[in-house]
């Protein structure tokens, strides 16, 4: 692999950048691999990368029906945080958080992790109680999170409206300083380059059409639009399409796929220093390195695989933004788009073995998978390599929906009075 550095860039600048090699190649699929990963998003490519780099399993193919990084990895609003309530979630997301810091160096690819701080606003007494519960639990779990008064919140994020006469005045905020953003494409590309360099085949424009199982039920490989590819271990990391893939192996999933829309504004000079989220007013916002305000909110209401959504959803998102940040009413929406997110009943992911020997699944990240990318990939690679979960992902089973042992962060935030 050609090492990236300021010197390499300078050297290439002298000769018109003619010397850069391909970051990854586009090989023909081999007949047989040790492991096939279905889905070349951040989680899938990362899994392949860690299989190769940590477990010495390099005979790996990542099979992708479109182009790598083209699913939710390339469509999300790139928020990174780990201030989850439950021990299980906190451990998982904080594992990822620790890996974000240093990922650029590990991959030798600037993924532009920016610890700008993620601020979650509290607008009523119930929000305050919820935020405090998180902060206390986070502290005892070794996860950064702190309480800010409205004035401190405004100081941290000057565009914030903390007027007491606002419809839902800001009563304070929970701030995770190490939270922030990263450059989504770079995450996929960095993992792809790292994996390819270690011998992983990244096979794009190759849709999986079936999962072949032997007489004993174990996985034998995948049928694809480019023929059968054999492997004793298959990891499905297909986000919104997880149900479709798992159906091919006869495994029914507790998942529903929803469109999630996001939008960016036209670029402006730095005006927004951090990430702000509000569950009550219901939107989140940050500013990209390019200067665009990056904005999102909840999913559309119906299940869909269409990657589009309705204007009324954006209306609700933007009225929330203009309520919290009235100065942005004259900003313009430049581009809006949709992704498909797979949601579990408890809004926590499934990172586990399945009832089918040799079949593993990593799904159910809902609207929040990006932040977990390195951690998720890391423990999933461990699970595949050892045919047993890493302690961090051990609770994120499929079985929990039978036993009732859910990891329900959303339920913990139940609203009622």
């Amino acid at each position, binding site marked *: 692999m050609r090492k990236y550095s300021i010197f390499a860039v300078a050297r290439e600048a002298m000769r018109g950048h*003619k010397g850069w090699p391909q970051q990854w190649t586009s090989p023909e699929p081999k007949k047989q691999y040790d492991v096939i990963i279905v889905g070349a998003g951040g989680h899938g490519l990362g899994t392949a990368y860690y299989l190769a780099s940590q477990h010495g399993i390099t005979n790996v193919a990542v099979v992708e029906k479109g182009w790598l990084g083209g699913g939710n990895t390339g469509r999300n609003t790139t928020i990174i945080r780990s201030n989850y309530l439950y021990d299980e979630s906190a451990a998982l997301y904080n594992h990822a958080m620790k890996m974000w810091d240093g990922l650029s160096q590990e991959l030798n690819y600037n993924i532009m992790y920016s610890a700008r701080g993620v601020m979650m606003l509290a607008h009523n007494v119930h929000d305050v109680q919820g935020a405090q519960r998180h902060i206390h639990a986070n502290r005892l779990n070794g996860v950064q999170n702190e309480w800010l008064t409205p004035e401190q919140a405004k100081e941290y994020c000057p565009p914030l409206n903390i007027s007491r006469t606002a419809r839902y005045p800001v009563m304070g905020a929970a701030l995770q300083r190490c939270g922030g953003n990263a450059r989504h494409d770079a995450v996929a590309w960095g993992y792809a380059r790292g994996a390819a360099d270690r011998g992983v085949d990244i096979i794009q424009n190759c849709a999986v059409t079936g999962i072949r199982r032997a007489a004993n039920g174990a996985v034998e490989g995948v049928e694809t639009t480019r023929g059968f590819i054999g492997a004793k271990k298959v990891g499905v990391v297909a986000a919104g399409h997880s149900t479709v893939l798992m159906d091919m192996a006869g495994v029914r999933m507790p998942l529903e796929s929803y469109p999630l829309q996001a939008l960016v504004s036209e670029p402006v000079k730095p005006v927004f220093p951090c990430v702000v989220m509000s569950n009550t007013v219901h939107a989140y916002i940050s500013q990209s390195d390019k200067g665009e305000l990056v904005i999102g909110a909840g999913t559309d209401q119906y299940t869909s695989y269409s990657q589009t959504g309705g204007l009324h959803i954006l209306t609700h998102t933007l009225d929330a933004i203009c309520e919290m940040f009235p100065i942005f009413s004259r900003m313009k929406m430049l581009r*809006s788009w949709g992704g498909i997110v797979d949601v579990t009943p408890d809004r926590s992911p499934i990172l586990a073995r399945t009832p089918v020997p040799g079949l593993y699944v990593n799904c159910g990240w809902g609207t929040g998978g990006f932040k977990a990318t390195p951690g998720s990939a890391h423990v999933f690679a461990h699970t595949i390599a050892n045919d047993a979960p890493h302690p961090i992902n051990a609770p994120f089973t499929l079985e929990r929906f039978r036993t009732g042992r859910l990891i329900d962060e959303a339920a913990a935030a139940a609203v009622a009075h």
Partner: protein
Amino acid sequence: MSGANRIAGAGRLTPAKTVRFTFDGDIYTGLEGDTLASALIANGVHLMGRSFKYHRPRGVLGAGSEEPNALMGIERDKARKQPNVRATVQEVFEGMTAVSQNRWPSLGFDVGAVNDLLSPFFAAGFYYKTFMWPKAAWQKLYEPVIRAAAGLGVSPDEADTDHYTSRYIHCDVLVIGGGVSGLSAALAAARTGASVIICDEQAHAGGAFAYEAGVTMNGEPGFDWAVAAANELAAMDNVRVLTRTTAFGYYAQNFVGLAERVTDHLADPEPQQPRERLWQVRAKKVILATGAIERHMVFANNDRPGIMLSSAARKFLNHYGVAVGTKVGVYTANDSAYETAFDLKRAGVSVEAIVDCRDHPGEGLLERAADLNIEVLTDHSVINTSGARRISAMTVKRNRGGAGRSIAVDALIMSAGWTPSVHMFSQSRGKVAWDADTQRYLPGEYAQDCTSVGACNGTDDLQATIDEAVAAGLAAGKATGGKRAAKPKLAGSGAGNWSGGMAGSAAGAGPDTTVKAFVDFQNDVTAKDIRLAVREGMHSIEHVKRFTTNGMASDQGKTSNIHGLAIAAEALGRDMPEVGLTTFRPPYTPVTFGSIVNHGRGKLFDPARKTPMHGWEEEHGAVFEDVGQWKRAWYYPRAGEDMHAAVNRECRTVRAVAGLFDASTLGKIEVVGPDAAKFLDLMYTNGWQKLKPGRCKYGIMLREDGFIYDDGVVARIAEDRFHVTTTTGGAPRVLNHMEDYLQTEFPELDVWLTSTSEQWAVIAVQGPKAREIIAPLVEGIDLSNEAMPHMSAREGKICGVPTRLFRVSFTGEAGFEVNVPADYGRAVWEAIWARAEPLGACAYGTETMHVLRAEKGFIIVGQDTDGTVTPQDAGLSWAIAKSKPDFVGIRGLMRPDLVAEGRKQLVGLKTKDPKTVLEEGAQIVADPNQPVPMKMLGHVTSSYWSENCGQSIAMALIADGRARAGETLYVPMPDRTIEVEVTGTVFFDEKGERVNG
């Protein structure tokens, strides 16, 4: 005088109607109807902006919304600043202030231009390869610098004082585009009697006729015809003509968003006028008449101010009467630029040369050029340009070699051909198809009920366009309920046919890797950047786009996408359609947030629900809290009291005397019908069949998974009528939950649900003197303990008004909840208050309510429980009817984890130091000295200072909590560890005697 470059007699503006405006502090004069771009060019100003990355000087490229370069800040006042406004779209008005962007200290001298010199370093995606060392420097150093250099305009910094509005509107036929095809289609559709909306983003109808000088329609000049046609349409009852209105988003089932700019062109808008109006159109048929956009030529240094599209130069000349230069060069791969050159020449502008990279221009063009004495260099290319802040010369070379020749010019117009505008078609989820003959993407398979006509459909000939549009208009009108109508007679002639041209880099764009041949002007993407992306393995057009940022600027690639695709295809050695096309996403052009939000700002952001007594509460100094959409009185501070003091006083007073509490926000559902009790049996864990009319009972509702969903008191009013209450926040979802089961699982039951939350105002009168207070006001109800014991309900009158009077208590005191029709809520409250106040009672708010109920160990669903708590966890097993065969949640409760050992249970906590009040949400551990991550046993759900107990009290959910009674546990805080003892949940009046008075 409106500028030295204004040509007398040219254009359509009125010379007498001048407008003064400023640009970067200098005062200029334009004409009414000018865009900022045309007015500046008229004044000889071509330098209008700086590019995003290299800060290169830029002028206008186009004359419309596709403009990538000339973006300005427009400022009306401090609160009404708009960044990134296209000078080619913004109309000038008297007193307008425009400022250039992305430059420091000035547009002419910009320090950021050093980036241009460093550009070999700043190749596409360079930032992925560097700035990684030392690690901390990315965030501290590199990123701030990159951010400060990026971005274009400056965000507004004050709240917008303009207002915006919206209209939902339905029509039979929506025509997008007011050029000849749109107008023809609209005229035809309108004749059928169908309701028609036609919109165009420009200030006027006419589309390309604004610059196509030689066109005639039915014998009259094309533009005059267009204006007349628009007027004719506007005068029809069934037609709405919307100019300055951009169709920006095409959503499901012909739902189209239009953004109308109402006042941006006015010097003094009426205060009543909205700045923008969002039209949310639902059309039965949509006709897309969105035209085509000219492409630039991709060659070295093709971005200097003064270099622009030929159609732009022609519009500046023929519409605005402005010459874009005095010595104009032409570089083209298409015939359209010839027409511009001819028009310029005829207007007295010197055309230095037409450089055509083709061997054979269109028929007759060479002769016409010769007639006008214009030199044409076929099979030649412009391989470079020079000039600092404006082009001064172009270098021309024969394609097959030879020496370059420098020609002095002060403007260069170019055309590589025309890209059909399939954006809206693509947004409608139609599939575009590659037309190999004409080398362009055209509408292929349709996904919605729409038709494309004219240039956006690849129809090049004028009469063919008209015929196609008329046919589409008639068909659309007829299909949506219009009558058969005769075709409007429309004959057009004199328009050029501009198919053909080239996509990708021209001869002057390399392969030399030092050449800056711009593809995407705003994002500074050059042909070599795209080749580099391909070299690095970016083989999908989406990767190329993301790696280079081609097409991702605020013009969204209107001029650059096809070029980028062609260059990538060439580098990959594939055909263009194999490389793909990036998806077009809404909006077509940027739309202000204000327009999308429209009414939903300020007080209309979200309804603030207020109870009938809200006014009284306000007058009596209440502080309010938000609970869902409701405003609830939180506490009533008196002079000198903080929240703590007020709540302590209220708590004391209620238990010593009495208090009044506004409980109107509780959800109420009237459950009526012969099967009412049967239905409630299924909805609640409790049994209801045996509850007698006139009695109340506390009920718990579960979800099917066994977790507590809601709770409340239910009163049986009659055999077949129950008055159900829910939590304030739970009211809508509980009703939905019950309706769901009733309609879909138990439809055979004869019972109905009606929300009565707002029918009744609810006044809780609680405390030892509660009965004394209300008794004199009540008629027809015996309030004695014997006649009306705890948990009973009666109907009668209070203050002459019908009431449902409940003897219930959420405080542990004897008390009543007075339900009266909401219109009488305030009057009855005041009457009760008039009795209560002299007795020493107080009004109390939700905070006191919370403390008093906590003293009694009553839970609040959503605070002491969350969505993971079962009735057993909450200590409410007694509320589960053991004998019932079924209720919602019965099976969920039996799941292994819900009956497992070690579940968190609700208990009481007392701090060892009675003065210490725990924080709600604080975590509890057995061993405070263990390392992080600590093993947490649970958390504090409610915690208060209890004035009545003289100590702090708390409730908590703790693993195996009930078995830990008496144990000492610890609450580690950042600065100390608090010792607590596990107790029962009842802190006051443990025997529960007070409730009986």
